[in-house]
């Protein structure tokens, strides 16, 4: 495979790496807020993969310009999915943070191991 061929897969490799970095944060970090940050990184990696799939060689964004004829457009469908997913992601993140605040107030700590001991 020549280099240019390999570069075509670079986006997917970055997706795999950022996904795993997010997963690592969720698994190995005890602090609940760090877990939520890891979760949002995990989510952004998934968004990146969807949007990488929609790019068409030489295509522009799927907004039809009046004058231009037979334009190649990138695929609009993944963009619609991700557009709503970002806003939903933020509101669920806010829900998670609200729970973390309540855990801090009742347990006095947000380190996972200390919470388990307190139970």
């Amino acid at each position, binding site marked *: 495979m020549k280099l240019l061929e390999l*570069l*075509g*897969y*670079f*986006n997917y*490799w*970055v997706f*795999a790496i950022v*996904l*795993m*970095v997010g997963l690592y*944060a969720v*698994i*190995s970090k*005890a*602090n609940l*807020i*760090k877990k939520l*940050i890891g979760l*949002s*990184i995990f989510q952004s990696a998934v968004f990146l993969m969807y*949007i990488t799939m*929609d*790019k*068409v060689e*030489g*295509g*522009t*964004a*799927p*907004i*039809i310009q009046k004058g231009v004829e037979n334009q*190649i*457009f*990138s*695929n*609009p*469908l*993944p*963009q619609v999915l*991700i*557009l*709503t997913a*970002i*806003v*939903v992601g*933020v*509101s669920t993140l*806010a*829900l998670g*943070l*609200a*729970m*973390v*605040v*309540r855990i*801090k*107030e009742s347990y006095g700590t*947000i380190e996972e*191991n200390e919470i388990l001991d307190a139970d």
Partner: protein
Amino acid sequence: MIFVFAIFLLSLLVITSIAIVRTTNLFVAVMLTSIFSFLMAANFFILDAADVALTEAAVGAGVTTVIFLCALALTGEREKPRINGRKTARVAVAILASLMIYATFDKPRLGDPDAPVHQHIAPWYIEKTTEHMDFPNVVTAILSSFRGYDTLGEVFVVFAACIGVLFILGVPPPAQKRLNKVVEQNKGLRHHLIPQVVGRLVIPFIVLFGLYTQFHGEYGPGGGFQAGAIIATGIILYALLEGENKALQAVPRSVLLGMVIGGALLFGSVGVICMFMGGNFLEYSVLSADPIWGQQLGILVIEAGVGMAVCGALLSIFHAFAARENVS
């Protein structure tokens, strides 16, 4: 040529994500998360996703950072490093990463026109948008009319999350945490006169730009979700500069809840009205004699509903967190 940009920005993305996970100071992690969202928006734009980049910009820069910081103010800022369990987690993650990278080799190359993704339904959408709706932005057409039912579900998810946060943070904190002295007026950035003056100058433009994005959704990148986030960011800026109480006077809590409920209700009622007029649920072409104008009218009203719901939800979430800080 876009490969140069894409590779450059994506490698920055990887570096930032690794740096986020490694720092122990949570505040630094939040700052790096805002840089992470800047990079995501730039990547989305380079990969031809203008609407998504605008959403990531409107939501990532303003609302996410503010919500994280409000939560950090209520919980500790320092993270205690964990000693055991690091080795196994790293090995497991490394194996998974190599498996996934191995799996990516039979994916279509970036930008490959005859990839299966592009054959199935996308060309149909692009043709039908000019035929049914006759406006340029295909993404808004799919979002609000072809896939209107899913967007309705999304608005209800945002609504549920907002109600969830209000329930969770509605309970007053346990008594001993409450500061006995009278809560001095939250003056926002007190002695920063210049940001207040410039903020007072910029906030109307932010809200105006939010409304522009709301109604410009058909012709360029924009729509309800982005507009709601931008307007919420403008009012959050007002709350930061003038103090949270004055922001509550400007947009009281009842109005916020009314916006959240009203937006979701507006969306659903447009669907029901379509059924009354003979079409099926969320089929806007029956709304008026000329089907194309019916579609455009329906989409306009729905985007307004989505914008109201998202703006109300994000703002009431912010006020729920900010009110908590005064008390505890």
